[in-house]
């Protein structure tokens, strides 16, 4: 990717962020719940009309929509995402608190997913239409049809409660507490990715140069390592970027199942509490993460695909 393209991409990302933030902001403006009441309810006191009006003015919620939006936007551009109503701390701090939990979980789930799906996908492609292929395809088909939160509950019940292999209650980030949520997320992702690996490898195996190599008597494992995998790699990296988009949403549900202290659990609570600044910050944060990852994927192409490195296209 050249400099000019990169600038173009970054501008496009900014426009998307602007649009997404405008969309969520208008939704919150239109939504029926009243954050002021939720906020004062937490304090557990009987509040007068004046206090409500006062708090509303303090938070700037009595202003018209565009004033509220531009005030928020101006803050964000200066690095200030506002105060979280429910956590009583700056939104940015609250996000930083929850970020490590989600990042660790997402990273370990992605690695586990690759460890499962790459070998399975290759085996499935190499042994196409043989029992092993049918077995792998059958399992991955079932995996695609299983809701991840249910898989999580089953794992929790069998491995956590019955066999007592892992601690069940979450609450803190630690290795043994991470195994079950990692497994749950990677099962759901691996089911999809195995099929994609299979397709990519099959496509490469169908090329004529592979037939040529086999006729000349190269052993299969050598062909796979030297030719098939490097070539199948490129489309798979793009698909991995898309999988991470799913992961960022799926992680919210799984964090709820396992009480894992991450961004997803934080967001669900923030939505329940009508903590608008925090939800707004969360959506923006996820958008930046997702688009950043996909930008990295595209940049990595330049290095992985020699055709692009020469600047030929």
């Amino acid at each position, binding site marked *: 990717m050249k400099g000019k393209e990169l600038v173009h991409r970054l501008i496009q990302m900014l426009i998307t962020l602007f649009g997404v933030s405008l969309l*969520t902001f208008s939704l919150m403006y239109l939504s029926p719940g009243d954050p002021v009441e939720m906020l004062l309810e937490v304090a557990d006191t009987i509040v007068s009309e004046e206090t409500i009006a006062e708090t509303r003015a303090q938070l700037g919620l009595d202003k018209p929509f565009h004033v509220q939006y531009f005030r928020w936007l101006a803050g964000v551009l200066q690095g200030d995402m506002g105060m979280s109503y429910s956590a009583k701390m700056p939104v940015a701090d609250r996000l930083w608190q929850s970020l490590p939990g989600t990042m660790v979980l997402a990273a370990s789930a992605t690695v586990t997913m690759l460890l499962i799906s790459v070998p399975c996908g290759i085996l499935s492609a190499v042994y196409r239409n043989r029992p092993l292929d049918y077995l792998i395809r059958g399992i991955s088909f079932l995996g695609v049809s*299983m*809701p*991840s939160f249910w898989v999580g509950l089953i794992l*929790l019940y069998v491995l956590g409660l019955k066999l007592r292999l892992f601690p069940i209650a979450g609450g803190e980030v630690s290795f043994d507490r991470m195994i079950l949520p990692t497994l749950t997320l990677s099962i759901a992702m691996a089911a999809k990715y195995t099929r994609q690996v299979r397709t990519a490898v099959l496509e490469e195996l169908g090329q004529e140069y592979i037939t040529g190599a086999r006729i000349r008597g190269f052993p299969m494992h050598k062909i796979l390592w030297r030719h098939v995998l490097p070539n199948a790699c490129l489309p798979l990296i793009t698909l991995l970027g898309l999988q991470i*988009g799913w992961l960022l*949403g799926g992680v919210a549900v799984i964090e709820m199942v396992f009480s894992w202290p991450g961004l997803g659990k934080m967001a669900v609570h923030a939505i329940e509490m009508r903590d608008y600044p925090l939800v707004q910050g*969360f959506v923006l944060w996820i*958008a930046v993460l*997702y688009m950043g990852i996909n930008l990295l994927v595209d940049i990595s192409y330049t290095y992985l695909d020699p055709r692009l490195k020469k600047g030929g296209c």
Partner: protein
Amino acid sequence: MGKLIKDKFLFWLYTFFVLLILGFAIFAPWLAPYDPYDAVMRQSLQAPSDGHLFGTDKLGRDCLSRIIYGARTSLMMTLSLVAVITVVGTFIGVLAGYMGGKIDTVLMRIVDMMLAFPGIVLAIAIAGMLGGNIVNAILALAAVSWTKYARLGRSLTLKLRQRDFIAAAVTSGSRPLHILWRHILPNILPTIVVTAAMDIGTMIMELAGLSFLGFGAQPPTPEWGLMLNEGRQHIQTAPWLMLYPGAAILIVVTIFNLWGDSLRDIMDPQRVN
């Protein structure tokens, strides 16, 4: 030739199962052994037995009956969602593709924007903010899922526009709406329908996911995602509460996925596996 016959057989087999599920949903009042809302506190959290095949929940309601009624809720939600995104998305896509110019640019910018963002995250935020109920969950998922159909409708329309019969229709003075309705739509419909059929399974799961988080169906509605959420609190004492609703989702989603794939296979026989 043999493959097509096999594909057709599979398609009708899966159609039979799909009809079976629809039958469960439609005839729920006659099939369910109990009233799904009927709380009998003295029989709360009973393990599966002859009287209650799938046991009872915290309020003593019969789980089997709630799962059968849950098919109604899930299918009604999913089918309306798929109908909305198919119609709206295709309409916007065809319009953009046929009109071209500024309309096309603006609409496709919006689509690009939506695709550059993980949809389910936005759907969770939208559904939660609008307030958890069935209609809002459908709206939230519709808001992030229509883009796929807009893309598809647009690219199909662009391909068709090059064809001679469209040029003939234009030269013979047909009005644009007539061309869209009589010439474009019938030609793109099969692809759109197949895509929609293959989407049903995913949508069932995403709607159940929203309900599981508390941003979809609300108690006391019998809905599988919500039942899983309620069952989660009793995982230690009453595991059947989370086992059966999840199994129901798994079975129904599997059948719809198989049906969608087999529909694609018979509509597009040249396509190799």
